[in-house]
């Protein structure tokens, strides 16, 4: 009789074992925490450690009760604060994505059309900021934007302005921070898409009567659609839940859902409400993530 490896006796092949590992990882560090958060979102605030009521409880002798508290969710929809924060987050994320596209598309296009030697250098420049921590880079922006910061000092010394501009703690500073931080996430997938483009198609379009901008609009833009969508999702999805940048650069009015989450969790110790916020945020983003996945699948399948 052939000796069967242990794993195979349980119906697991070696290949399956390799695939199992990432699944275990996701199980342990995504699904389990998610279930815990989901559980907490159905609890009530309690003066205890941890500060919420248990989900399953012996209420009287021989009765095990499961208590699902939907009040947290109802609360989120009744208090205008949360809805506004959600809407504001979506608005900020949307505008940031748009700004990233406006800045990033020409950059990705330029990199894709440059010579291979310069191309690597330019790509390095895009990736280089990742070598420093995000926090440090956001703090650097404070130094640039504050009243006696670099930008104001330069503008005053040149004589363009006489009084420092208020830039820090404004929506402007927040958008600058978000666009700056997320730009590489838009450029890289877009570059990967544009790099595959057959530039002769543009010559063909011109040959058939298109001016260069028409050729861009009719050929390049539709062909880079997947790159645009993929890059936009990579900016939009994390930007909705962004906390650090609005907290450090945005003013007190920068009411975003990440900030609410923080406040509920740490200031109010309202873990159930914070969890409900987190679950809602996730539900909001799932369609976008699925969309992103389908774009990625299409892109790797090579069809447009």
């Amino acid at each position, binding site marked *: 009789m052939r000796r069967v490896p242990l794993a195979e006796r349980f119906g697991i092949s070696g290949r399956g074992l390799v695939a199992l590992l990432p699944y275990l990882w996701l199980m342990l560090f995504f699904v389990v925490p998610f279930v815990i958060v989901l559980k907490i979102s159905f609890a009530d605030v309690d003066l205890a450690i941890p500060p919420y009521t248990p989900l399953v409880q012996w209420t009287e002798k021989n009765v095990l009760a499961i208590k699902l508290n939907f009040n947290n969710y109802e609360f989120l929809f009744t208090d205008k604060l949360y809805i506004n924060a959600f809407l504001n987050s979506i608005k900020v994320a949307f505008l940031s994505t748009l700004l990233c596209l406006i800045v990033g598309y020409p950059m990705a296009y330029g990199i894709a059309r440059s010579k291979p030697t310069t191309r690597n250098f330019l790509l390095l420049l895009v990736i280089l900021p990742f070598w420093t921590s995000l926090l440090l880079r956001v703090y650097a922006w404070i130094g640039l934007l504050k009243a006696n910061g670099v930008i104001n000092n330069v503008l005053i010394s040149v004589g363009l302005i006489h009084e420092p501009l208020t830039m820090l703690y404004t929506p402007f500073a927040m958008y600058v921070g978000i666009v700056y931080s997320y730009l590489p996430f838009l450029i890289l997938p877009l570059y990967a898409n544009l790099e595959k483009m057959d530039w002769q198609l543009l010559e063909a379009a011109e040959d058939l009567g298109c001016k260069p901008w028409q050729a861009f609009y009719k050929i390049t833009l539709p062909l880079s659609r997947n790159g645009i969508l993929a890059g936009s999702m990579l900016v939009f999805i994390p930007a909705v839940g962004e906390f650090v940048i609005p907290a450090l650069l945005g003013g007190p009015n920068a009411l975003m859902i990440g900030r609410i989450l923080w406040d509920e969790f740490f200031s109010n110790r309202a873990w159930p409400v914070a969890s409900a916020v987190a679950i809602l945020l996730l539900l909001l983003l799932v369609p976008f993530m699925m969309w992103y996945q389908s774009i990625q699948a299409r892109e790797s399948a090579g069809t*447009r």
Partner: protein
Amino acid sequence: MATPEGSAIKALPAAKATPWTDPNAKAYVQLDHITKSFGDLKAVDDVSLKIYKGEIFCLLGASGCGKTTLLRMLGGFETPSSGRIFIDGEDMTGVPPYERPVNMMFQSYALFPHMNVEQNVAFGLKQDRVPKAEIKERVATMLDLVKLGDFGKRKPDQLSGGQRQRVALARSLVKRPKLLLLDEPLGALDKKLREHTQFELISLQDKLGVTFVVVTHDQEEAMTLASRIGVMNHGEIVQAGTPSEIYEFPSSKFVADFIGSVNIFEGKLIEDEPEYVRIASPELGATIYVSHGISAAPEATVWAAVRPEKVFMSTAPPEGPDNVVRGAVQDIAYLGDLSIYLVKLPTGKVVRVTQPNTSRHAEAISWDQQVYLSWDATSPVVVTR
């Protein structure tokens, strides 16, 4: 401008025969001292050329000879460093591609992958704001013409190589350009399909009367397609003429060698008369007698080129002494319709001979056999460079 579909099919111009022999014929495309430099490199070097209406003109040359650059200048994708380009009498030198009455069929076909066949073909017409109904009609006519009537809704990646080639052709012809440029039009097709497509291309060109300029590195393709061939080397057109002129009367060693296979014997002019010349060739080990005069300095070094199919091979000695050598068969390649023999002369020179296999039971000449090689006095072409 709603012209009926039939009007695209024009009668052939009367001068189709040989307009290039008529000094008064008006050139349809005229290149006037065109030079294109990239840095220090002259990709195209002082090319002047006239192409006539209804021609299929082939630019033939090895890769890097400048033929594609020349074609791209005709299309407007490159601007000449100096010189002027006229198409149908108009100066087109600095006109961008989208304003030229010229279309190009790209080597990679460059079909738009996000559009189906119909949209690809309709693209240029839409760009010109042709009325919708007319676009539909012209696209349908064109697709029928290239036998793709049923493939209109397919995307390019759902087509075979031959079908893609025909879509590209339809797309570049549907605008009824004055001049169609084709960059290696059959390069991506396999041999059988290529031969078939060559003849289709010729009949299509015949029907539409559009002037074609074709770039190719494949001499067989050029010979089949072209009304005239321009052989290019190092950015220059070294000879332009009909396929048979190029083949039978090459003007230089380069052209003789580039088109088909040839045996070239270096020698010295020893007799230079108006009616004949005699060349002593140490390389051949015999004298070559040519029954026409040539213009060269006496005692000049010349080269006599003899095509392999014009060399006779026999076991019995033919009449000599001119144009006859003896050698041993070194190698035989049997190709079915003909056989190629490599015959080594006592001087070491190897001569290539092709013989048609006209009989199924011909007496076989085998390896190492001693044979006589000879040729007619009219066969050698004498070139001086």
